[in-house]
C-alpha cells in the first residue's frame, strides 16, 4: 500500500509541474502584458511615463526575457511561496490567494459532500423502488438538474431570493459585517451567504451521481450473491445496505475526480455570479485584466486541487478494492 501511495504521489507531483508549464505557456501567448496595462493606467492618471522608465520597468519585471527564464522565475517563486504582487488587486498574491483558496476548497469539497449525502440515499431509494411514482419524479428532477447550466441556475435562484424572499444575496458578508472583526454573528452571516451558492454548485453533480448510483445499485441487485443472501434469509435492509450498496459505491469513488473537476468549474462560475471572493472568480478577473502571472498561479492552484482530489480517489479506491493495487 505504501509503495502504491508513494508512486501515486510522485505521479501527482509530476502532473502539477506539467500543468504549471502548460498554464504559463498559454498565458504567455497573450499579446500585451500587465505592464502595458499598468503603464496606460498610469498615463490615464496623468503621470509622465518616459521611454527610459518603461525600459527600467521592463528590466525589473523581465518582460523581454525568453519565456523559459520567466517560467523559472515564476515557478521557483511559487515553490518558495513568493508569488509577487498583483497588478489588479495591488496586494501580494500570497495574501490574495490565502483566503480565496480556503473558500474555494470549502465550496468544492462542501458541494461534493452535499452531493454524496443526497445522491446515495436517493439513488438507493430510486433503485429499490424502480418504476414507482416517486422514482419517476426523481428521474425527472435529475434530468432537469443535469440540463440547467450552473450560472443560469445561480441567476434564477438570485432573482427568486431577492424578489420573493427578500434575502440579500451576493458577496460574502452583509455590509455591516464587511469590516467587522470575527464573531459568531459574522460567521452566521457568512454561512447565510454561502448556503445558496453551495446548493447551486451541488445541484448538477447531485443529479448526475443519483443517476449513477441508481444504475449501479440496480446492476448489483441483479447479481447472484444478492439472491443467495436473500435465500439465506438475510433481512432485506441488510441485503441492500451491507451487501449491495457497498459494491455499488465503487464506481462512485472512481468518478470522484470527474465530479470534483465539474464542481471546481461550477464553483468558478457560480462565485462570479454571486460575487464571492474565490480562486475561480479571481482567475477570471485577472484573465480579463491581463494580470498574467497571478492568472497562471491561480490556474495551477485550481489544478492542484483537482490533482489532490484524484490522489484521494485513487488511494480510496485501492483501499476499498484491493484489485486496483495489483493491476497498477
Amino acid at each position, binding site marked *: 500500500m505504501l509503495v502504491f501511495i508513494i508512486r501515486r504521489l510522485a505521479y501527482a507531483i509530476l502532473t502539477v509541474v506539467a500543468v504549471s508549464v502548460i498554464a504559463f505557456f498559454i498565458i504567455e501567448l497573450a499579446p500585451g502584458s500587465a505592464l502595458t496595462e499598468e503603464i496606460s493606467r498610469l498615463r490615464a492618471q496623468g503621470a509622465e511615463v518616459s521611454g527610459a522608465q518603461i525600459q527600467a520597468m521592463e528590466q525589473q519585471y523581465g518582460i523581454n526575457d525568453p519565456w523559459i527564464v520567466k517560467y523559472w522565475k515564476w515557478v521557483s517563486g511559487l515553490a518558495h511561496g513568493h508569488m509577487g504582487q498583483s497588478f489588479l488587486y495591488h496586494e501580494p498574491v500570497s495574501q490574495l490567494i490565502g483566503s480565496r483558496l480556503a473558500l474555494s476548497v470549502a465550496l468544492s469539497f462542501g458541494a461534493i459532500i452535499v452531493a454524496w449525502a443526497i445522491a446515495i440515499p436517493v439513488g438507493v431509494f430510486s433503485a429499490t423502488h424502480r418504476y414507482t411514482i416517486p422514482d419517476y419524479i426523481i428521474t425527472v428532477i435529475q434530468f432537469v438538474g443535469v440540463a440547467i447550466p450552473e450560472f443560469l441556475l445561480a441567476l434564477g435562484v438570485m432573482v427568486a431570493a*431577492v424578489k420573493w424572499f427578500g434575502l440579500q*444575496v451576493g458577496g460574502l458578508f452583509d455590509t455591516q459585517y464587511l469590516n467587522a472583526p470575527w464573531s459568531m454573528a459574522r460567521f452566521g452571516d457568512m454561512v447565510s451567504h454561502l448556503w445558496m451558492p453551495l446548493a447551486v454548485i451541488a445541484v448538477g453533480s447531485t443529479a448526475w451521481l443519483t443517476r449513477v448510483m441508481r444504475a449501479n445499485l440496480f446492476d448489483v441487485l441483479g447479481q447472484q450473491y444478492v439472491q443467495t443472501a436473500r435465500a439465506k434469509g438475510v433481512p432485506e435492509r441488510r441485503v441492500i445496505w451491507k451487501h449491495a450498496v457497498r459494491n455499488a459505491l465503487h464506481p462512485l469513488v472512481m468518478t470522484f475526480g470527474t465530479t470534483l473537476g465539474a464542481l471546481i*468549474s461550477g464553483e*468558478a462560475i457560480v462565485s462570479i455570479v454571486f460575487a464571492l471572493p474565490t480562486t475561480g472568480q479571481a482567475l*477570471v478577473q485577472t484573465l480579463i485584466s491581463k494580470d498574467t502571472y497571478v492568472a497562471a498561479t491561480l490556474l495551477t492552484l485550481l489544478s492542484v486541487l483537482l490533482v489532490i482530489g484524484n490522489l484521494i480517489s485513487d488511494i480510496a479506491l485501492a483501499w476499498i478494492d484491493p484489485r486496483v493495487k495489483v493491476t497498477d
Partner: protein
Amino acid sequence: MSQLAELETTDLMPDDDRAALAPESSGIGEVSQTRLMIRRFRKSKLAVISGIILIIMYLGAIFAPFLSPNDPAQVDANYKFSKPSQLTFSGGPGICQVKQVIDPVTISSHYVTDCKNAIPLHFFGRGFEYKLFGLIPTDRHLVTVDKGKLLLFGADSQGRDIASRMVFGSRVSMTIGVLGVIIATILGSVIGTVSGYVRGPTDTIIQRVIEIIMSIPQLPLWATMAAVMPPNMSVTNRYFLMTIILSLVTWTGLARQVRGKVMSYANADYVNAAKSAGSSGSRIVLTHLVPNAASHIVAVSMLAVPTAILAETALSFLGIGMLDPAISWGVLLQDASKIDVLQQYPWVLIPALAVILCVTCFQLLGDGVRDAVDPYS
C-alpha cells in the same frame, strides 16, 4: 430475450422491414445493422422528439432574418429595457400601443399601454432588408408592424429586440459547440486509434498528456485559453478560434474512449486473421478498426456537444468568449449578469430558455443515440 423483443416488433415494423423478413430470406439476420440502430432509436420517444425540436431550431437559425421582426443589431435609445409588447386579439392580432404620458402636475413621465387602438400585426410584411441564404435579397418577414416596434421578449440595455437577437444568437451558439466537437472528434479518433493500436511508449506518452490536460479543471482552462485572444479580433476569427479552443479540451475524453474500443478490437480474431493474411497496419486500422468503432465514436461525440455549447455560453456570459458585435446566447445573457438589472427587467433572462431547451434536447438525443448504438453497454 432480445430475440423475443425482435419478434414482438415485427407487427409494428414498416413494410420494407417486413419485406426483409419475408419467408424466402433467413429472417432476423437479414436486417442490416444500421436499420437495427434506427429501429432502436425510434423506440426512444424522447430522443426522437428532441431530434425534431433541434431540427426546428436549426431551421430557425437558417431563416433567422425572416423570423425576426427587427434588425438584431439596431440600437434604439427610446426602447432601452422596454417591456415585452402586449399582444391583443380583439379585432385581429395586434400589439398594444405604449404611450409616454407626462403628468401635468408632477411633470413626471410614465408609460401607458393602450389596447383599444392596437397596432395590427402583418404577416409576410416588409421590414429591414436582408439576403436569404446570403443570396436572395428580400425584405419580407414573418410578422411586422407599421408603427412602433414589435418586441415579443422586450428589449435589452441598448434597446435592441431580444427576440430577434435570440433567433440570430442560435446561429453562433448552436454551431460553435457542434463544430468544436467535430474537430475534437477528428483529433480524438486519430490520436486514440494511434494510441490503442501502436501501444508501447507512444501510447504511454499520449496517455500521460491526456491525464495532464484532464487534471486542469475544464472551465478555468477554457477561460484561460479564451482570454488569450486579443479583444479587437474580428467576429469570424474569434468564432473559429473559439471552436478550436473548445476542441482542444474535448478531444481528450474522446481519444480515451476510442483507444479503449480499438484496444478491445485489436485482439479480435478477425484482426489476427487479417494480420496473418498479410494486411498492412493501415489497412487493418482503416477497414476493420475504424468502421467498427465509428458508431461508438458518433455516440460519444454527441454526448460531448451539450458541454461544448454550455462552455461557449458560459464564456461569452463572462465576457471572454464571443464579444458584443457578435450575437450569441451567452452575449445576450451578459445583460442578466447584474442583479439589479435582472430584478427590474426580468425578461433579459428569456434567452436562457433557449439555452436550456437546446442543451436538454442534445442530451436526450445523445442518450438515445448511445442506447441505439450500443444497447449492451
